[in-house]
């Protein structure tokens, strides 16, 4: 399988807004290290998932890749070409191939726009179709996302749809250019359980039918396990473990991954599991601990953990871990 997306040593630091007095006395600027040196690639046709707790940098990574944010450091490749610095018309053309859908379909759809306009809007912006032609294309994509018969939906407004239907509209809009790559940022997190599976199935079918590749972002590891091919677990801006999902769930190696997996509720009252407890809370992304950034909570930490930062290494075939004590 070829790589469709690759990022190398990607970093995004946001400067911290300070009050005037603080600025006056601060010796140096401080930053939120939202993404702090990550390297990975997404293979064509797969579903690659970024998972981890709130604030670990998943959304920032997704937005960097589709060039909605400028990286502080690092490179982004799309189909082998460096797109890190792309601008103007070239960036506009790239946007047709890379799309994003968000967690909250209310926020991402204009409440005053009819569905036909909301979905067809990108066609007009890119000067590709309008009027009747636009409508034809919209009907076609609505059909593809299971809003059938599509004629019944075109003249509705977002508030007249259920959450699941709204997310389908967002999906319809994202596939209107026949993109190759979609960043799906928590697309099912706000959707009720009874509608969630149908939406996931739809995304899986679209991948097959349209040859899509997804970067899937979720904090829900049970959903990640169901949908993904490969998963990267992030902690405070870094990838701590990355592998295909089978190996990640059968043999989680990083202490953080182990703790995360052991905390997931299992829908079986007769199954009692042993939980791996972590101490303390996630540190602030402004004051990332020295050494291994997980050491302040790690049940296995030793002296060197607070001094030296572990490098992410391939411990088994295609299974990467960043911990001093896990070696191949």
């Amino acid at each position, binding site marked *: 399988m070829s790589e469709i997306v690759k990022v190398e040593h990607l970093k995004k630091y946001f400067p911290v807004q300070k009050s005037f007095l603080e600025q006056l006395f601060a010796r140096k600027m401080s930053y939120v290290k939202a993404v702090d040196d990550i390297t990975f690639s997404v293979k064509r046709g797969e579903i690659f998932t970024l998972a981890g*707790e*709130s604030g670990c940098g998943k959304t920032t990574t997704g937005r960097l890749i589709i060039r909605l944010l400028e990286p502080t450091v690092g490179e982004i490749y799309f189909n082998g070409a460096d797109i890190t610095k792309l601008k103007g018309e070239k960036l506009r053309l790239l946007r047709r191939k890379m799309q994003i859908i968000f967690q909250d379909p209310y926020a991402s759809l204009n409440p005053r726009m009819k569905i036909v306009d909301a979905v067809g809007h990108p066609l007009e912006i890119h000067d590709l179709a309008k009027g009747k032609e636009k409508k034809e294309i919209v009907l076609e994509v609505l059909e593809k996302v299971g809003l059938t018969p599509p004629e019944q939906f075109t003249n509705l407004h977002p508030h007249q749809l*259920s*959450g*699941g*239907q709204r997310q389908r509209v967002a999906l319809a809009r994202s596939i209107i250019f026949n993109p190759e790559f979609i960043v799906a940022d928590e697309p099912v997190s706000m959707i*009720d*359980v*009874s*509608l*969630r*599976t*149908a939406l*996931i*199935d739809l995304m899986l079918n679209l991948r097959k039918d349209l040859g899509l590749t997804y970067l899937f972002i979720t*904090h829900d*590891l*049970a*959903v990640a*396990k*169901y949908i993904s091919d490969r998963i990267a677990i992030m902690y405070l801006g870094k990838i701590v473990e990355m592998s295909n999902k089978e190996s990640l*769930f059968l043999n989680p190696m990083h202490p953080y991954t182990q*703790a*995360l*997996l052991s*905390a*997931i*509720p*299992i*829908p*079986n*009252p*007769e*199954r009692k599991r042993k*939980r791996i407890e*972590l101490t303390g*809370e996630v540190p602030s992304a402004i004051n990332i601990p020295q050494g291994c950034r997980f050491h302040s909570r790690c049940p296995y930490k030793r002296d060197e953990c607070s001094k030296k930062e572990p490098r992410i290494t391939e411990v088994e075939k295609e299974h990467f871990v960043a911990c001093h004590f896990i070696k191949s």
Partner: protein
Amino acid sequence: MPLLKIGSLTVDYRTSRGTIRAVEDVSFSLEKGETLGLVGESGSGKSTLGLSVIRLVPYPGVIVKGHVKIDGKDIVRLPEHELRFIRGRKVAYIFQDPMTSLNPIKKISAHFAELIRTHEPNVKEAKALERAKTVLKDLGIRPERINDYPHQFSGGMRQRIMIGLATALNPDLVIADEPTTALDVIVQAKILDLLESLRNAYGMALILISHDLSIILERCDRVIILYAGHMFEHASSTELHRNPRHPYTQGLLQSIPNIELADQKLAAIPGSPPNMLNLPRGCRFWPRCSYVMKICRTKEPPLIDIGHNHFVRCFKYSRGRAKS
């Protein structure tokens, strides 16, 4: 006598667009020390049902029928001043959004002092604070932090403080409305452990409200499945997991991923939940049900006891008997 006994409870919201029957004909009881889970999707009536127990259904909601007995006393008919003893002392409610019950301009100490001294006016301020510090310690929060304000805590810690406030007066029943929905799994597990340990230590009963069936099955003795205001199924967690009877429950169980299963195939439930202002006639699930029969489209199925304390509201089990 059970600690809580609810019978034929029906709650309406009389809105300008029409009446929403958010809870309809709900009956169940809860013993001391028991944990009951209320599961349902958004809008199924979980919060409305929970709030009915302390008679705090918000305007324009009205309890139109039924009773809610706490230690045998029907709170639906109790005068307001007697309710004050029930709320907080006997039954504590942990609200869906912690910031609604924490006052941002008051220190944590003030929250505890006020709560304790309202209910126990003879307790001196210093004594109340001593007690509050012990509670914080139990929650895994350093007692010195009692002088901090709510915004100085993380979401998980705020939720723990809420639990501390709810349990400070040693209530017989705690109702926790989605106490962990906004939290990450690791914090979520800790909070649920905390509730469990408090329950074990003080023998209080717990009603846990969640849209997440996995959490409920993992944590509760018994489960009620709510759908559009109706109780669809009620059984012990083990029974519900082994023998789910209602087509909706079966569908739910097949649509939640379980990380312990290899190659799990999820099955989707077709359609979407009904509009509460325009419920389908008959069983409110029929448009989505793969077992739908002729009677389902016209008559409402009754809640049937199928043995082993297992209740189901579906015509498949009532041999065509409609609700009288």
